[in-house]
């Protein structure tokens, strides 16, 4: 379980997260939505311990960072490092050894090639494979479906379901609503640095319609496209 209380984060005078209170329970998939700049990535970075913040983030087991698999939007790979070396590094960082890597290569990545030469989708899959091999309790997946092919999207969806069945806690962010409604138990709407709405599965359709109404129509007409 992850319990966040009174989380606040500011950059100078700009307040990015304001008084966030939320509990993430095991065996559940949580979706976080919000416009660009709403604070999603900052929230994830605070949870991971990559940002200093006010308020408390507790977890069991603790410390959270040592049991957390963090998939960032744009994973970085050291130049001249092969995919396999990256996976070994990820396991080694959590005091694990990588065995049977050929069978674990579920995305059929060219693991003996340099990771920097991979396409965007392949990079994402490698990064995801890295955190899955770490045997984490918690997962923060920031845009896991972005740039990934249809087959891999299906595999990722299946992985999320299997992790849920294993009682892991998964926190997802996506800009594609259907990926969240297919996977999540709850969706939390982050607006101006605070959770404006908590929506359960039965109200996902309503939320989607609300979001469409708020964003698409009036904004596009403001462009005055000709």
């Amino acid at each position, binding site marked *: 379980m992850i319990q966040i209380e009174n989380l606040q984060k500011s950059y100078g005078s700009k307040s990015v997260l304001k008084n966030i209170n939320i509990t993430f329970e095991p065996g559940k998939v949580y979706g976080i939505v919000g416009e660009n700049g709403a604070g999603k990535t900052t929230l994830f970075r605070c949870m991971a311990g*990559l940002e200093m913040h006010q308020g408390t983030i507790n977890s069991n087991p603790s410390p959270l*960072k040592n049991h957390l698999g963090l998939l960032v939007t744009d994973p970085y790979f*050291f130049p*001249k490092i092969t995919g396999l070396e990256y996976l070994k590094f990820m396991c080694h960082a959590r005091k694990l050894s990588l065995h049977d890597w050929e069978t674990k290569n579920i995305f059929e990545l060219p693991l003996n090639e340099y990771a920097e030469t991979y396409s965007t989708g392949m990079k994402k899959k490698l990064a995801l494979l890295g955190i899955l091999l770490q045997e984490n309790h918690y997962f923060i997946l920031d845009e896991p479906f972005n740039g990934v092919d249809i087959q891999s999207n299906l595999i990722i969806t299946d992985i999320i379901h299997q992790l849920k069945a294993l009682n892991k806690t998964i926190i997802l962010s996506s800009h594609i609503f259907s990926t969240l409604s297919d996977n999540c138990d709850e969706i939390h709407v982050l607006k101006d640095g605070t959770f404006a709405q908590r929506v359960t599965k039965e109200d996902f359709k309503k939320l989607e319609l609300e979001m469409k109404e708020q964003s698409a129509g009036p904004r596009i007409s403001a462009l005055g496209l000709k």
Partner: protein
Amino acid sequence: MMKHYFILQSQLIHRHLLASGLPIGLAYLFIPVAFLGVSILVFEKTELAPILYPVLCLTLLIPFSNQRRNEFLQISFGDRRQQLIRIMENLIITIPFVIFLLYQLQWLSTIALIAAATAMAVWQKKYVWRFSFPTPFARHQFEFNAAFRHSFILLISIMAIHVIAITVENFNLGIAALLFILVIMMQHLSHPEPEYYVWNYASTPRLFLLQKSKMVVTNAIILSSPIWASLIIFFPDQILLIITFEAIGIAVLIATLMSKYAAFPYEMSIAQGIALALVISFPPALLVYIPYTYHLSKKRLSNLLR
């Protein structure tokens, strides 16, 4: 358009200097003084200066050949202007080196440097080489693997110089080759990796730093083994001196590692760079410098590692 590009570049350099932590006037003074100091030192200390000095300049040009950077310039300015910008960039950086080479009456080196700098600007990587070089290093660390693959040609050249040193029985040249290898590793170790690569460790700052230090010692010994081993075989009476140089070299690498994490996740500031350079010029100071920077690193990493 191109004028605007170069104005923007000068603004970027200015911002980097401001971020260095030194008073801006001092930072501007430091660059020419450091350049002159290094130039004089290279020509005073080695007979290979006419070769090493242009190579040093070309090493500085490598980051400008970055594929993504060049593609961005190509998209923004078009093919012809992009090439012109790249040639101008390389030649601007080359100018002080050319002046110093002319002052040293090194005509051939001057011509070779200008030609190589222009060629580097024009040459563009059109394909990605997918073959990955095997390396002799520990499987779980990326620093030495990456450094080995990046500097492979340079390492081969140093090995060739070392073979010459053994053939002509020049012990000093052999030691220079040994130190050169360690300097290359130092260059790679001094740049901070992204936070994620540190954050990932389920370890305390103390254990993390010890693990990294162990990696540096083991891999540096492996990488330099062809040189120190052959030096011991061919100059057995100098064994103490060889061990001393190897030990100091490795201590410098550890000092570099600690300096990097003392500034992490940022690049070392100019002030920190100067401190490290001073310590290297007086190796006994490493005995104080390493524990001190270890303490700073531990503090610095305590936000990321628990």
